[in-house]
């Protein structure tokens, strides 16, 4: 099949848009998913905990 310029243009103008929208929605859901809240909170505080500068067992 010959993929010409017009085909590429229409694909990027339609599916390109939808995939980016779908992707953004996915990211938003992940970010604001209630049960992730605690994980994120711990992650951001934990890097400041550095008792003995050694890997954990």
């Amino acid at each position, binding site marked *: 099949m010959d993929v010409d*310029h017009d085909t590429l*243009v229409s694909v*990027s*103008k339609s599916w390109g848009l939808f995939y*980016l929208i779908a*992707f*953004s929605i996915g*990211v*938003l859901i*992940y*970010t*604001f998913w209630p049960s992730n809240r605690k*994980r*994120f*909170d*711990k*992650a*951001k*505080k*934990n*890097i*400041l905990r*550095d008792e*003995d*500068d*050694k*890997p*954990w*067992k």
Partner: protein
Amino acid sequence: MVKQLTSGERQFAAVILVVLAVLGIAMAAAGRADPLGVHGLIVLLYSGALLYVVLSSFYEREPDLSLRTRYYDDPIKVGIALTMAWAVFGMFIGVWVAAQLAWPNLAFDAAWSSFGRLRPAHTTGVIFGFGGNALIATSFHVVQRTSRARLAGQISPWFVLFGFNLFCILAVTGYFMGLTQSKEYAEPEWYADLWLVVVWVVYFILYIRTLARRREPHIYVANWYYLAFILVVAMLHIVNNIAVPVSLGHAKSYTVWAGVQDAMVQWWYGHNAVAFFLTAGFLAMLYYYLPIRAGRPIFSYRLSILSFWGITFFYMWAGSHHLHYTALPHWVQNLGMTFSIMLLVPSWASAGNALLTLNGAWHKVRDDATLRFIMVAVIFYGLSTFEGSFMAIRPVNSLSHYTDWTVGHVHAGALGWVAMITFGSLYTLVPTLWKRERMYSAMLVEVHFWLALAGTLIYVFAMWNSGIIQGLMWRTYTQEDTLAYSFLDSLVAMYPYYIARAFGGLLFLLGAIVASYNIWMTVRYSPEALTDRAPAGPDQGPLPENVTAPAE
């Protein structure tokens, strides 16, 4: 370095280096008088020198394997030394090329020192040499600390570090001989490109394997940025550099891309080099060293995730703004323009997140020059992304393109953002890594800060002025509808700005030299931090092995 390796690992290191040396001999034999032959010789010398280091400690006592429960910091230390060496080299060449633009005689009539060869030596030296080594060194630090796990390899971190530096050396020496693929920021020829692919794949595997060892349930966001940097740079590098060499005994190659596709691939690469080499990894530094230095967690972790995905997916489509008013289809230019403007949102989200983290700690910013480096970096990040989005608008670009405005923008980003965040991170990292109480001289950090800030401001203002004057002169018409100024007129108008720019650059270079001295003195003379930590082992002793005793 070598003392840390078991005898099996020492053998393995020696084998790798012998293979590399044989490759060098093969290149030298195939290339003969061609620059490829010279590069073969350089590969041979480089691997020979490293082999000497390995062999001279080959039969030393085996290391105490219980030390392997510690973090692996030696490669980071060497990486920091290389970072500073490249900073001084790259910035020196930068000041030199800047001076050549004001006083062309400074090329001294030699081919190797002409502007066209020194300029890529400057960009490669600072972007890959200075920036790349800083990224590798800090990524090794951040991934271990945030994962609470040791690097997943004894030899591979060294392979990544020295392999990458070999690439940089091949690149820069190639330019001096007149070698280039004529692709901006991707000038090195095919064999250096192939070598970088090998190095980069090892880097990626090492990073992933270290993350897999992590003891923290969640992968801290800084690692996402480093990983994006590693993964995307691999993609960009491979696609943009697909080329066919004239023959295996020749340094010269031809790209497989043709015409406008070539231009698009090149600037898809070029812009994402800005995004993933010059931004993503440095944002990783920001998200780790800023909270550490300020002693407070990042303002909003969720915002950092949203801006991560925003930056990753918007940047990908922005490259065509480098090709406004070209043969590139109009809709592709529009696409790049639109995405560039949208990019402002995640960019400012990161900048705002960082500034809000500092909110409430402004007294620390006032007192601590290191934290001030980080804060100023954030401000320049916000500034240069705003400027970039603005310049990406087609009519604005018609004024800025081909002028010094672009150069001003680049250096607001490169000096103000990339270099400042690097120095802020290094001043945070060096004392902890060498277990020192603090940097040797807080005063010198302060001096460096003001040199860097003054240098950046002089540089950027000179180029903004010069660029806009240039752009306006080129589009001024007389009443008879002819151009009012010749190109030469605009060149004469640039003269004072070029002198100012060289001076600003000189200040910045002096700052980097001060930093190198301060880091060196910290390693050698600063008192050890008083802690109740376990007694230091060889990889954490008071002196790193590559430093001799003060009595010398």
